[in-house]
């Protein structure tokens, strides 16, 4: 039961209608996009202005109650879960674009602004906001800052950290602090850099100043067919080794092609193809047209049996449908999806993929791969049924083996989904005690009380969250 004093105090800060405590209201906040992990918050507050965020944090601190900020809840590592009966600070109502400076190319936004809405708002002026995670139609800039979100275009444009100029945050003690500047230059420690990607453990973003880029003059999208995934990966190496930096290099494996073509997302892909490579080139027209020809040559040499260049926007969307439809198609095969996220040095992609497929087969799982090949960022997807306890167990065991294979290949635990509540127990696969201690120290400098999104990122003894076969209505 919620402690009345805490809730009364929170209502005093945000108003009665912006503080949820009934079980049926809290239910939707039990999980984020990683539905395997669940924890019911004690309360959810929906501040409308930044002073209310500070008030909520101060209240939580006074009661010694942990809190976690939440954007749209599209995260895939359980980062927005309130463990130990904490308070969720839902930032969706703080959704104003406060300033757009077209000449100096930046925007100041509240944390609840939806990623795609920002790009839409500035597109008529020839600008865009580069980070474009797959959930960009729903996810928020505040959440993107917390997770250092990427997307299919990070090879050329980088991740969120490359596009945040300044932040206004509420620190875990309830005080406001401003990091960075609109100019992108700062004096002193790079606190913007330390804060982006800290998964909500160092404070709550109340304003973000982000860089806007000029829309590319020309975009060309190519789709190439390969006899196997290895030749597709070889092509990626050849393209990058030749000094080209495409905006996207996405590989779709045979298993995914089969699933997509058997679904409503069918994009007319050749089902006998071993793999497909989606390549997007953008920039000045004069450059892009030359690059298209160079890429054609390189991938033909690397073994592509067919290369098509999208003739118009409609065809371009069709190419992307093959890539984007993968999740939907895999989702048709079973009630649940588990989407992994790891990164390996790009040259290791072929051998690691082989091992991942072997792991999936060994555990009798429906596993397929679509991935950001240019970044070495793998996304094995497993469709499964969580009500099948045995299958659930196999999914988790396979996931751990996949992580180990990637780390052994010189890779890391996450490329864009974060560590959150999902992978903190695996951090010691990659880091030694001293490394983890150094990370604890950063957190301690910001949050000595340990009340800002505790139980995430770093391994701790706590295990209060349920992970496993929990019924959706549970």
């Amino acid at each position, binding site marked *: 039961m919620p402690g009345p004093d805490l809730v009364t105090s929170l209502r005093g800060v945000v108003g009665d209608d912006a503080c949820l405590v009934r079980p049926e209201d809290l239910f939707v906040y039990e999980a984020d996009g990683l539905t395997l992990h669940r924890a019911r918050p004690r309360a959810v507050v929906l501040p409308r202005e930044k002073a209310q965020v500070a008030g909520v944090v101060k209240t939580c601190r006074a009661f010694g109650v942990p809190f976690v900020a939440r954007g749209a809840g599209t995260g895939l590592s359980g980062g927005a879960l309130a463990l130990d009966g904490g308070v969720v600070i839902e930032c969706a109502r703080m959704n104003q674009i406060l300033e757009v400076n077209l000449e100096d190319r930046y925007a100041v936004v509240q944390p609840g602004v939806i990623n795609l809405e920002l790009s839409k708002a500035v597109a008529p002026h020839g600008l865009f906001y580069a980070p474009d995670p797959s959930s960009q139609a729903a996810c928020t800039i505040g959440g993107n800052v917390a997770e250092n979100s990427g997307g299919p275009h990070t090879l050329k444009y980088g991740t969120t950290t490359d596009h945040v100029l300044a932040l206004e945050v509420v620190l875990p003690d309830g005080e406001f602090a401003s990091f960075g500047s609109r*100019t992108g230059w700062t004096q002193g420690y790079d*606190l913007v850099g330390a804060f982006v*990607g800290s998964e909500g453990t160092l404070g709550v973003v109340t304003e973000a100043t982000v860089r806007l880029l*000029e829309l590319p003059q020309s975009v060309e999208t190519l789709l190439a067919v390969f006899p196997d995934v290895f030749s597709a990966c070889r092509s990626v190496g050849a393209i*990058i080794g030749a000094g080209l930096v495409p905006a996207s290099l996405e590989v779709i494996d045979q298993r995914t092609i089969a699933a997509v073509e058997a679904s409503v997302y069918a994009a007319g892909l050749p089902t006998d193809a071993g793999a497909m490579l989606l390549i997007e080139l953008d920039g000045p027209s004069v450059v892009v047209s030359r690059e298209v020809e160079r890429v054609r040559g390189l991938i033909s040499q690397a073994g592509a049996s067919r290369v098509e260049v999208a003739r118009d926007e409609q065809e371009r969307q069709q190419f992307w449908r093959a890539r984007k439809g993968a999740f939907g198609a895999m989702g048709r095969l079973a009630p649940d999806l588990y989407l992994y996220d790891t990164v390996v040095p790009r040259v290791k992609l072929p051998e690691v993929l082989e091992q991942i497929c072997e792991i999936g087969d060994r555990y009798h799982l429906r596993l397929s791969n679509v991935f950001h090949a240019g970044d070495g960022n793998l996304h094995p997807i497993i469709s499964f049924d969580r009500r099948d306890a045995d299958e659930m167990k196999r999914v988790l065991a396979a996931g751990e083996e996949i992580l180990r294979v990637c780390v052994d290949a010189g890779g890391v635990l996450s490329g864009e989904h974060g560590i959150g509540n999902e992978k903190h127990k695996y*951090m010691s696969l990659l880091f030694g005690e001293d490394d983890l201690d150094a990370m604890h120290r*950063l957190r301690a400098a910001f949050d000595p009380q340990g009340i800002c999104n505790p139980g995430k990122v770093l391994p701790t003894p706590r295990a209060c969250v349920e992970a496993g076969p929990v019924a959706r209505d549970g």
Partner: protein
Amino acid sequence: MSALDALRAAVGPDAVVEHEAVDVDGVSLTESLRPRSGEELAAGLRVLSERGMAALVCGGGSRLCQGNLLKRADLALEATGLDGIRELDAEDGVVHVRAGTEIAGLREAVRAEGWELPLDPPGAGASVGGALASAAVGPRFGHPRDIVLGLEVALASGSRIRFGGRVVKNVTGYDLAKLYTGSFGSLGVIEAAWLRLRPLPESSLCLAAALPDGAAGFERALAAARRPSVRVAAHLDRALAAAIDPVTAREGNVLLLELAGDEALLEADLRELIEETGAHQVDGVVIERLRAIQGGIFHPGGLRLRLSSLPTRVGEATEILARDGGAVLAYPARGLLYVRFPVGLSNDERTVEAAERSARLAVAAGGGGFVIEEAPDWAKQRRDVFGDPGPLFPLFRALKHQYDPNGVLNPGRFAGRI
């Protein structure tokens, strides 16, 4: 056992070198710790911590003039012995390099494999670790943080940590590499780094053009700077420009450009830039001269400040500085300005204060901040060259306390004099 003997016993006699006294910020240093391996570095740091000693941490020594005055130091910790490329992946375009490696040599090594090192700080002998620790920026490339994929660092306690790594996309744990880049060695000693390289441009060329005075000149410079092939765009007042292109400088302020990349793009930009600005082609050596101007002081004992500004307000900020006697080099698209003021006599505090006032007005107009990059010791004694950290000071102090609680590393040198 004396502290030095303890240090020799821990790291080996050859790694502790006695030399003639070197004066850094009024601190006389007669010994240097020159570790040749991460193990030696860690062992040395452990002794320093245990004995309550402090060290000036430095790489190639090209940026010792920057930062606040050192509060104390028993010796210099020189990272130059930690040098060499550990791995250069020519297919992936990433390099793993030890901190003491000279940038000039590294640049050549990666070039031979078809890649470009996106670091070009001023200063002969600059090392990778020093450039990262001081967030050194050159004319061509932006903030070094953009290319750091991972770092290996030795903490004051002697523990060796690493974060990030060789992969280009990574959200595994906190991004401590960002915190350490630009921290002036105040939180740890950078031992090695993973850096992301860029493809070598197919072609490059340099242009110079005379600019009209005032706002029109800056508008023209910014428009040119934003062309896709332009990677250097500098606006120099005519006095500074005389050292680079005296002929053009006679006509007014000078726009200096370097175009790099795809040949067809270069041709197109070149044609239009000549039409729009009346630019003419100049020898590539101008970039070297530009770098020297950015990092240099013409008047001995002078004052150099770096300011940031929104791109469209660089002109306004420059006008303020120039009116107050500053010589200004500005990179309009990047929003960076370097200004030099002559300082005459020793303890000429009024001149320094006037320069600061001017810089404050300029950044108020430009929307940024400023750092005093170089100043005489007497001027540094009276101020924090990074400016007052204000409400961020408790956080800075907390970070220093977490990573270097006994103040072993570069005490006093960084922002907030921590």
